[in-house]
């Protein structure tokens, strides 16, 4: 039996970074304040002391420039990890990510490979208002040529970076900012590879499939616990990979429960929830006993005050209401 130990999500990210750099000298971390400052969310604290400023590389405020440099460095034989502080700032780098990183392999007829990992924080919950709180994972999930993952647990945060770095294609990792202080178990040694492509069933159940990812997983599990006290047995699926989506796990679950509730902190219209709802409705059309429900963020730039931020984003209450609706209770 493997010994387990408890660490935070932040520590998991840090350990993963440290391990990656120790294992492979082509790996380096690059981004604003990843070095001296220790990372905006303190994920890389201590790493500059350990690996030096070449490999824990502070950049100027130039999201397009250093993301593009990451693409070039990947082409040139390195294994860069680019950190963008927050998904809102990634808008400055989307040209490089979408027009270049995602297209190079195809445009070059398979000659060019961009083994780049981009990490960024996402999500609300810290009262950072409308320019620091969004969840644009769905945008990245729309783009052929990218792989997109979002670890919801400490163990996945510990393991996913490894798999991402093995990937010959660009991988975007979303870390929900509200998770960094969460604690969770990881194995003391070894066995860290995580299959990026498979969703995880975090709770088995028979009555309804709650499908979610990232910062909303905890909320879904909370709702599932309360529902369970009411005698409603929810299955909770953590997508982990949001491009590609793991159809099999989703559809198998819905084939069993015949009801689905999607919980997604992105805005509702045109969000990831829409894709999942569309797939289930298309592919489980004859199985579904009720319309697929979506619990998403309200379509508003996330406001600052706690009560409005809470009201704007998915909460266990809302998830329970949606489950009740699918069960007509």
């Amino acid at each position: 039996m493997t010994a387990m130990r408890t660490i935070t999500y932040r520590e998991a990210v840090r350990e993963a970074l440290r391990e990656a750099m120790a294992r492979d000298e082509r790996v380096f971390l690059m981004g604003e304040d990843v070095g001296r400052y220790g990372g905006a969310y303190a994920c890389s604290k201590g790493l500059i002391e350990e690996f030096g400023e070449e490999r824990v590389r502070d950049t100027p405020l130039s999201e397009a420039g250093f993301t593009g440099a990451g693409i070039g460095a990947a082409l040139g034989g390195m294994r860069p990890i680019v950190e963008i502080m927050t998904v809102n700032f990634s808008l400055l780098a989307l040209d490089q990510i979408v027009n270049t990183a995602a297209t190079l392999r195809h445009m070059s007829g398979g000659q060019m490979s961009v083994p780049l990992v981009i990490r960024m924080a996402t999500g609300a919950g810290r009262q950072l208002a409308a320019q620091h709180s969004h969840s644009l994972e769905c945008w990245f999930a729309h783009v052929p040529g990218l792989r997109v993952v979002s670890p919801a647990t400490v163990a996945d945060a510990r393991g996913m970076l490894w798999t991402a770095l093995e990937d010959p294609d660009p991988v975007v990792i979303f870390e929900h900012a509200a998770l960094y202080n969460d604690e969770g178990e990881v194995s003391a040694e070894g066995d860290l590879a995580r299959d990026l492509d498979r969703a995880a069933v975090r709770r088995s159940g028979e009555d309804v499939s709650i499908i979610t990812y990232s910062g909303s997983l905890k909320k879904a599990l909370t709702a599932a616990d309360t529902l369970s006290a009411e005698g409603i047995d929810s299955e909770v699926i953590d997508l982990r990979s949001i491009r590609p989506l793991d159809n099999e796990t989703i559809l198998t679950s819905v084939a069993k429960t015949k009801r689905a509730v999607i919980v997604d902190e992105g805005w509702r219209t045109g969000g990831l929830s829409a894709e999942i709802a569309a797939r289930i409705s298309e592919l489980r059309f004859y199985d579904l006993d009720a319309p697929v429900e979506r619990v998403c963020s309200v379509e508003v730039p996330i406001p600052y005050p706690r009560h409005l931020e809470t009201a704007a984003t998915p909460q266990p209450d809302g998830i329970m209401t949606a489950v009740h609706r699918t069960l007509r209770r």
Partner: protein
Amino acid sequence: MSRAEDGRVHLTREHALELLRRMMLIRSFEEKCAELYTQEKIRGFLHLYIGEEANAVGVMQALEPEDAIVATYREHGHALARGISASAVMAEMYGKASGSSRGRGGSMHIYDAGHRFYGGNAIVGGGLPLAVGLALADKMQGLTRVTCCFFGEGAAAEGEFHESMNLAALWKLPVLFVCENNGYAMGTALSRSESNPDIAAHAAVFGMPADVVDGMNVVDVEAAARRAAKAVRAGEGPRFIESKTYRFRAHSMFDAELYRDKSEVEEWKKRGPVIRFTKWLLDTGTAHESDIEAIEREVETIVGDAVTFAEAAPWEPVDDLTRDVMSPAKGAVR
């Protein structure tokens, strides 16, 4: 504020005390904010301007009510120096409905249409193109107004900075750019982020006159701003001021300040804008201890009242969550 047109500082006793009063108001207001943050009355990111007060206060002297201001997430000082009420700003920090942005924005997003205060922008460099556009509107409408844009030296690395410099200079727009160079962008020292740390040179290369000023000296800042604003107002195109300053506090309340020595901070504190100006006022006999104490009491009252106001102010009802996403009056804008 006296009309700024002549481009020179008239340092009467009255004016000098007004400068001090404004700096002390900002200082006192922000010290209170830091306290309220630890009490969790204020949340999110809180970026204090402490140490940099001479910049906002000095520059605002050169601006008229019809001018526009674009600032950053470190903008309490600019808002107060512009004359927005401390109560409205404090209520915004609380996230209350009586806040200057109805509580929607918090510390990083203070707006006031009446004062032509266009934020408050939490995207580093994001305000620069906006300022260019405001000035373009003025120019196209034949209005003799200045748009003043504040930003940090870290922003100068962003592409949006260079694009904005070029547009403003190319189209000879009435913008006054004020770079508050406090030496650090979060934990990154300027020399580690700019191959050429001479920020003014990055504006000058676009053919824009660029001045460097001691940002710890409110009178110097005012003088530079008056000169520059006068030229801008005269239709000479954009002007750039790089103001060398320093923040005494951490970048935000989350910052462990691993990247700089305490001694460096202490050195700069000795040159603090409030302490230095106060000393000068006393040394020259322009003011007396009693004047200073009176101002202290005055600003304490204002800040105290602001807190009382913010505490008492109502929360926005949750039902109003989606208000102001789109205009209710579609098709009805003037």
